């Protein structure tokens, strides 16, 4: 246990500062911005609307389609080449799976709900920020939902279990690092996104997941507050 002082001085279970705002893209049916430290995610929801290409329509229920994109100037270092790549496609897919359990599209056969996640600035934890923004945007769009989805990356750096790793911690070189993006349904505590890369013991995973539950509860409060703030303004 040598990583007991975090590089940026945070406590083990402390996230970077979080800001959330709902209604940031006027054209969209629902939208939100979620900022955690230097990572900024915008999410815009369009739909339910007619699904094209038509062969992807599902006559039983509506389809959720998530698109994740880093803006060309958003990367740490080199310019990110515009357009989809294998990484962004996979993240779009796991984002869909993370959100699907809470939304009900049974009333919208053959339709699609499109979620577009865009990142103008990144410093690790982008898929989690994207999921947080997307779930707020879905709620803002009035999609029927059982719960919000809160998401954070937890992990172990040199055997210390910490929350919300930043880029420097992901790249820590003096000990093993494990990065675990997790999405949690705050009310049931169930996990809808789980990925991990690095080195981790079974015990450490268990502790990490307990930590993620606690952190996601806090994120959930921020999400709720942002949603309420938009509608309070509207009612004035």
């Amino acid at each position, binding site marked *: 246990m040598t990583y007991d002082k975090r590089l940026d001085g945070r406590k083990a279970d402390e996230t970077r500062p979080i800001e959330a705002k709902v209604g940031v*893209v006027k054209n*969209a049916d629902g939208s939100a911005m979620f900022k955690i430290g230097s990572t900024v995610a915008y999410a815009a929801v369009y739909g339910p*609307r007619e699904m094209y290409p038509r062969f992807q329509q599902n006559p039983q229920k509506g389809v959720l389609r998530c698109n994740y994109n880093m803006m060309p100037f958003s990367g740490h270092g080199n310019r990110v080449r515009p357009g989809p790549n294998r990484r962004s496609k996979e993240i779009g897919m796991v984002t869909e799976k993370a959100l699907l359990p809470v939304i009900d599209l049974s009333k919208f056969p053959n339709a699609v709900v499109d979620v577009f996640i865009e990142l103008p600035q990144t410093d690790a934890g982008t898929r989690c920020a994207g999921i947080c923004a997307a779930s707020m945007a879905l709620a803002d769009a009035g999609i029927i939902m059982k719960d919000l989805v809160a998401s954070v990356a937890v992990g172990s750096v040199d055997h210390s279990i910490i929350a919300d790793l930043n880029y420097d911690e992901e790249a820590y070189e003096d000990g093993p690092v494990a990065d675990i993006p997790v999405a949690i349904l705050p009310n049931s505590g169930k996990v809808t996104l789980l990925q991990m890369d690095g080195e981790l013991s079974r015990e450490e995973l268990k502790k990490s997941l307990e930590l993620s539950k606690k952190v996601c509860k806090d994120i959930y409060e921020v999400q709720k507050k942002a949603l309420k703030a938009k509608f309070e303004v509207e009612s004035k």
Partner: protein
Amino acid sequence: MNKASRKHIIELLDKGIRLDGRKPDQYREVSVEFDVTRSAEGSARVKIGDTEMITGVKMELFEPYPDTPDQGSLMVGAEFSPMASPEFESGPPGIESIELSRVIDRGIRESQAIDLKKLCLKKGELCWMVVIDMAPINAAGNLFDAGALSAIAAIKDTKLPGIKDDQVDYDNKTEDPLPVKKVALSVTVCKIGKHLIIDPLPEEEKVIDARLTVATDESGELCALQKGGEEPLSVEEIDKMVELGIEKGKELRAKLES
């Protein structure tokens, strides 16, 4: 084209007003914010009414082209994310975003806004490439002017990164700005019936006869033009549109200073 909508817009213009109550030659509220993303070497957010555009500048090192061994280079791109409008689709860049990036590229390049010779580090071996990417957050009309204004603002905001062993050291920004010689920006003038308007709303963009994007530098010299739309323009009309473009360019320029 929606004929009823066009008729309505023209009838309003006959009385000198627009759909949103503006005068024909009046911009919506314009705001410019610098340094909006840390991961870029320079960036800006421009809002024109409900239109919002983020532009970032990334600096790269490259071996100069054989025909210009002592010059850096410039690249301008625009990605119309479907986040910004229900009318944008996923997939490869459409012709609208290609036209936008090329017109803005010409405005910056031909005005010699950036002194490309000063971006040469070792003749024939190592030069800076300025890569400008525009990303609309919300597309609510007049992306041309928002794009051009945010591009030049992001250029002004840029600080060169450090260099280590002929590689870019992105973690260590210097205090050196880009060698900006001129400040080029554009005003797009649209023709609907016999009327000329600027800063069109999406509803207006759909029913225009023609548009002319007029890029000017601070002395009022033209540096790029692009005609769009399906109807022809007379020389007199073009002259009026250019006059309006130059005049309104001065107004926009003031937004960069504050």
